[in-house]
């Protein structure tokens, strides 16, 4: 078998453009490739890839492999695996980087087991061990109560990276790179699952991932109503979005699209206001990248105060409306 | 010697703890203090579905054939969670006496319904005298053909306002007889009392309440023997509740000493606090094992008079000490309504007195020692 070389980023598209996680992966992949003095490639899979391949070059890729096929319009493990397996074998990269996204979570384990190699999921930090030239992959474990660094001598070293954990490079459209359209015959008989219907549970207003301010309610808000009233009013004043910890989503108080945490959305807004949130590690994992965490909780011992910059100890029903009113006043000038 | 609960009891305990943590949080406990009924029929139904009401009853009556030690594990969790409601009055104070002393007909009538959670019962023995002995019963039962007419006042009857049936002690001639009385019988009046623990205790006034003779439990005039047995079961059930309650007070207090700073240090680093916590832990441990021993004797149907009284005397006194120390360490915070300490303290006080306080049981122990 040929020696494994280079870093391959498994790219994702969002609305015809490169997804932000992919720019982050390219940013981090570029550094790793430079450390290794090897190349950075990017694989883009869709029905039509379009301009995204040029974007990938502008964000750091040396080569972009595009696989286009009408059957690849929507992610399905059994079709995407055919592409991923073929390219992984043909390109034999040293490492494959994917996003810890809905696709990455599903595809990466299948690929690792298909190839008989190792996978580290949800990584926060990646570096190259200078001697062994192995990827040192650091990821949170025990619900965020610790971190662990893993390595493996099996190639390719597959890794998924948490969204917003890495920074993209400055976009440089003058960068040169090669786009390599690649044909993969999709064997339809190997697709064993059928998507009958896709149901969107769109949350009105600003998307959580893009919101500069997020107001999150925990189990302690007590029911679905405050998410639509008290918390929403506060978020509206700050042009922000409303989020939730896991229990409100599991209890059906809010759609699961609003769940922020280890197994929900990962967010990193400028201001994160945690209302009646206890601060379980699993939740903190989803918001610890926020620039300023503000906690409002009646329990002075709540773990969330350990994460917060500012806090108020008190019942949220009393604190939040007063906070919102004062903000209104201040913002009105 | 094996001091551990068996696998089944450990599973029962874990399952009960999880259920009660989810379904009986302190907010619920507080709400129930204000609630007229003092319990949640919905939660009662779910407990019945889990089989809790039938734990001690044989399978033929819809129960599970568990023993008193199984019950002890469950009660410790109820004590820890401060579960409000008529569990003990229905099960230990009523279903057990019916099971052990009832006629086949009575067992068939009452026990399956209790196991299914469809019947709430309570025990009406105590009277304004406050004594728990034969001489304390002044309520009278007068025979009239196939019925009895019962007149008197019962005090501190737990959950009487929601009970479907009472097990009631009355004086018949020189002896005491226990009657199963339908709560809807004309002539019965029930008033909710205001109590320290905000548990639901009632005054029940019976005015010529007519009860069919077939509703006598056990033998006419031999009711005190049953009442004494109920007292034993009740006392150990209270010990188990206290044990769970004190364990939580201990944990809460120790956690607090690991968080609370004074003079720039955690208060748990002060020797004076450490020793007080150690004393609490020693007390709680002793409560557990003295209770387990008595519960085991009861589960084996062995004579347990001295074990029960020893346990209740010790537990009642230890309860007072542990709660007091817990409060002392918590300082002013523990006295606030928002803090859970006061919930435990008030209930511990009620349990300390239920089925006899320390002195009451010391008397029995002394008597058993031949004094």
């Amino acid at each position: 078998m040929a020696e494994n070389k280079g870093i391959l980023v498994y790219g994702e598209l969002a609305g015809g453009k490169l997804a932000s996680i992919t720019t982050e992966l390219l940013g981090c992949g570029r550094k790793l490739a430079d450390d290794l003095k090897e190349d950075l490639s990017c694989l883009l899979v869709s029905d039509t890839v379009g301009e995204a391949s040029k974007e990938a070059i502008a964000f750091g890729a040396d080569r972009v492999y595009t696989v286009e096929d009408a059957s690849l319009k929507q992610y399905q493990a059994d079709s995407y695996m055919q592409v991923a397996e073929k390219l992984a074998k043909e390109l034999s990269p040293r490492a494959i980087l994917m996003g810890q996204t809905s696709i990455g979570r599903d595809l990466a384990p299948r690929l690792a087991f298909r190839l008989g190699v190792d996978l580290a999921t949800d990584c926060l930090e990646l570096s190259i061990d200078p001697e062994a030239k192995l990827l040192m992959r650091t990821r949170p474990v025990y619900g965020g109560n610790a971190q662990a660094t893993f390595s493996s001598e099996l190639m390719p070293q597959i890794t998924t990276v948490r969204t917003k954990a890495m920074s993209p490079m400055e976009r440089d459209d003058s960068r040169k790179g090669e786009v390599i359209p690649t044909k993969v015959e999709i064997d339809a008989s190997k697709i064993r699952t059928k998507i009958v219907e896709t149901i969107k549970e769109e949350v009105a207003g600003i998307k959580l991932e893009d919101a500069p301010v997020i107001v999150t309610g925990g189990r302690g808000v007590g029911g679905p109503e405050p998410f639509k009233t008290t918390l929403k009013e506060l978020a509206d004043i700050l042009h922000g979005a409303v989020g939730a910890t896991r229990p409100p989503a599991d209890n059906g108080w809010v759609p699961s699209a609003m769940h922020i945490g280890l197994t929900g959305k990962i967010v990193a807004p400028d201001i994160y206001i945690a209302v009646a949130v206890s601060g379980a590690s699993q939740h903190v994992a989803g918001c610890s990248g926020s620039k300023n965490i503000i906690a409002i909780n009646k329990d002075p011992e709540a773990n969330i105060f350990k994460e917060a910059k500012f806090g108020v100890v008190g019942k949220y029903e009393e604190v939040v409306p007063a906070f919102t009113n004062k903000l209104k006043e201040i913002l009105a000038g | 010697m094996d001091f551990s609960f068996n696998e089944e009891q450990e599973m029962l305990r874990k399952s009960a703890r999880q259920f009660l943590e989810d379904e009986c949080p302190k907010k619920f406990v507080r709400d129930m203090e204000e609630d007229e009924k003092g319990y949640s029929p919905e939660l009662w139904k779910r407990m019945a579905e889990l089989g809790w009401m039938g734990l001690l009853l044989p399978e033929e009556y819809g129960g599970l054939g568990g023993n008193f030690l199984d019950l002890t594990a469950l009660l410790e969790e109820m004590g820890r969670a401060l579960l409000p409601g008529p569990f003990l009055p229905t099960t230990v104070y009523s279903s057990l006496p019916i099971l052990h002393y009832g006629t086949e007909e009575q067992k068939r009538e009452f026990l399956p319904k209790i196991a299914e959670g469809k019947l709430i019962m309570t025990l009406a023995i105590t009277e304004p005298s406050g004594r728990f002995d034969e001489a304390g019963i002044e309520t009278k039962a007068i025979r009239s053909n196939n019925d009895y007419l019962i007149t008197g006042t019962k005090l501190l009857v737990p959950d009487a306002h929601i009970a479907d049936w009472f097990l009631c002690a009355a004086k018949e001639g020189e002896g005491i007889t226990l009657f199963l009385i339908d709560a809807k019988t004309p002539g019965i009046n029930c008033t909710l009392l205001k109590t320290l623990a905000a548990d639901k205790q009632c005054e029940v006034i019976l005015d010529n309440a007519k009860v069919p003779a077939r509703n006598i439990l056990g033998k006419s005039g031999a009711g005190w023997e049953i009442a004494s047995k109920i007292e034993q079961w009740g006392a150990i059930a209270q010990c188990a509740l206290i044990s769970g309650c004190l364990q939580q007070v201990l944990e809460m207090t120790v956690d607090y000493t690991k968080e609370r700073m004074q003079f720039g240090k955690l208060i748990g680093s002060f020797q004076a606090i450490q020793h007080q916590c150690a004393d609490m832990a020693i007390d709680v441990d002793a409560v557990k094992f003295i209770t387990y021993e008595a519960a085991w004797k009861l589960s084996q149907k062995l004579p347990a008079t001295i074990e029960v009284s020893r346990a209740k005397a010790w537990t009642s006194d230890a309860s007072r000490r542990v709660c007091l120390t817990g409060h002392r360490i918590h300082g002013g915070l523990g006295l606030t309504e928002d803090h859970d300490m006061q919930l435990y303290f008030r209930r511990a006080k009620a349990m300390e007195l239920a089925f006899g306080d320390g002195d009451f049981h010391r008397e029995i122990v002394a008597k058993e020692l031949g004094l």
Partner: protein
Amino acid sequence: MPINMIVCCKQVPDPEAPPAVFKVAGNKMTLPADVKPVISPYDENALEAALRIKEKTGGKITALSLGNKLVRDVIKKSLAVGADELILLEDEAFEESDSWSTAYALATAIKKIGQYDLIFCGRQAADWDAGQTGLGIAEILGIPAVSVARKVEVTDGKVRIEQVIPDGYEIVEVALPTLITVTSELGDLRYAALKGIMAAAKKQPTVWKPADIGLEPSQVGAAGRHSKLNKLFQPVKEAKCEIIEGDSPEEAGANLAVKLREAKLL
């Protein structure tokens, strides 16, 4: 049609334990003895998914667990809530498994069980949070898999799954046999009724050693790993929360707004 289901249940340290009790020593996570282990929460959701199908369609549930010195009153919860059988891959050799060696041993055991229509796993385990084992088992067995299911129904030999996606869910159909990883939105595991607990206490799990499933000790546990754990550590957090006070909760709330303005966050 009665359905043969296998649910993989992992015993893990209680993830709900307060963060302060998680302590790393010598590349291992240690928790105080009074923090009892539990079945990993997503595996409980997986068990619930299987129980709902058993209720509706009928079938047999085999719970499968891997580890060493598994605590009986923890792992037998699967039986107490309604699983019919419990198989433990239990041996010293299974210690320190990674995703690969775990999935490999579980898949090998599932082959030995032979009869299966549906395999359920939690979406990830609460200790290493890797989220690989379920999909890995499906790869090894060569069966289809659907991840992060919030609802699972079986009709006419087909499984209908609601799979959570970022902004909603997809309804996916797949033929049996298949593997499904389950997420918390599916719902909590039911409580064990006393009857179930008493019956479970009387049942003994089947225990398989590596040799019982035809594996060498070198293929399982630490020896069978694909990944090397270089370091386990706890990053130091500098906690410096400024608590905003006020004479009343309302005043504290208003003061917070003022503080944010002063800190130029608005």
